[in-house]
């Protein structure tokens, strides 16, 4: 039960929301700051495509790191579950993880892993969009960071909803 809940929903969504906050705000603030200080204009004038250099790299990084973070978080959650279980009962780690992997099926793992790539894509894209398009002024940098978090968090939940429905239909 624990493993299914963690791997299917708790791990991806919680990590997605945390990354929306940390990565989304970081990317939004960084690009917003670059926009306000004309660094993006300087890049463009020096015949470099700032979209490729700044946006594509960040979105790709987010798409790769969010799934890895989810795997890491799921592992820690299961270890935590094992420790919690041993407060009230006595179970070996080997038995615990054997039960965990027995309970999990392909239909649990695959949709949960695929949707994390989309979470990363949404987080990276929203942060870049808000930062890249923020208006001049330091206040707009804060607004870009804040709105990145809000929109990325909303998209994580929305994408999770869609993933669950698709997973039900396909699997």
């Amino acid at each position, binding site marked *: 039960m624990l493993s299914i809940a963690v791997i299917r929903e708790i791990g991806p969504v919680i990590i997605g929301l945390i990354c929306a906050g940390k990565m989304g705000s970081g990317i939004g603030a*960084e690009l917003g*700051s*670059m926009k306000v*200080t*004309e*660094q993006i*204009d*300087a*890049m*463009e*004038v*020096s*015949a*470099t*495509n700032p979209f490729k250099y700044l946006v594509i790299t960040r979105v790709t990084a987010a798409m790769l790191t969010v799934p890895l973070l989810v795997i890491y978080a799921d592992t820690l959650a299961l270890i935590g579950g094992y420790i919690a279980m041993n407060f009230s009962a006595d179970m070996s780690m080997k038995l615990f993880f054997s039960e965990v992997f027995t309970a999990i099926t392909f239909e649990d793992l695959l949709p949960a892993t695929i949707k994390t790539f989309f979470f990363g894509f949404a987080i990276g894209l929203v942060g870049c969009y808000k930062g890249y398009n923020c208006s001049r002024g330091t206040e707009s940098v804060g607004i870009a960071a804040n709105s990145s978090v809000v929109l990325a968090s909303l998209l994580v939940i929305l994408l999770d909803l869609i993933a669950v429905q698709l997973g039900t239909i396909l699997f």
Partner: protein
Amino acid sequence: MDNKDENIKDNKEDIKPDGKVDNKADTKADSKDSKNFVINIEHVKKSFGSNTVLKDINLKIKEGETVVTLGKSGTGKSVILQCIVGLLYPDEGKILVYGENIPELDKEDLQEIRKKIGFLFQSGALYDSMTVRQNLEFPLRKLTDFNDAEINNKVKEVLQNVGLPNAIDKMPSELSGGMKKRIGLARTLITEPKIMLYDEPTTGLDPATSREISQLILETQKKYKVTSIIVTHDMECAKLTADRMVVLKDGEYIAEGTFDELQKSDDEFVKSFFEGLNF
């Protein structure tokens, strides 16, 4: 009449007694062959919403010439520079750089033109996540096939030229305003552009540093023989660097001439820029 008087007479004929010139009339810099002009701005108009910043801008700049643009803050001087380099697009008119109309170029052709243009932003616009070395290497790595040794030599050379050889491994946050401007100038010059656009190069700097930056701009012009447009309020910088000056008011150039010619202008607006100066 000796040659010097004839030259003065010719200059005065192009400028009306009140310092104004007909915006559509040929200026001294005109040539029947417009291909001699590196930058040719024709009837450019630009608005932001209901605010018309540029009404009818016409300007021709020859190769190697330095033109200084004067005007009040917020009147569109920087907008002209941004239109030349394609950061903004005019609503009407043509901006010809080496015969290419900037607003009509596709991305690839625009990038090719931009390789010939250097733009010094008001704040320097250094990439604050990179060191000075990385800032200077950035355009070389993107635009040239230089190897590491050549890039290293080039970086050291431009830093020597701007008088900051020891700043090579500093972060932009560790630099003063004047140092940032110099490094920004070094980064712009490192690719040896043919056209330089300076957006208020001495704004916010103390008089001594402003003089140093102005001198640096002058040395750059002499050394690299670049075509330059300088937007500035710094009259000392203008006097030192300008071959020709234009005055922008209400979206149009209302006066044009050398520093000395405009200083003698009868136009009140033009005169206001020279009040209190001891040149």
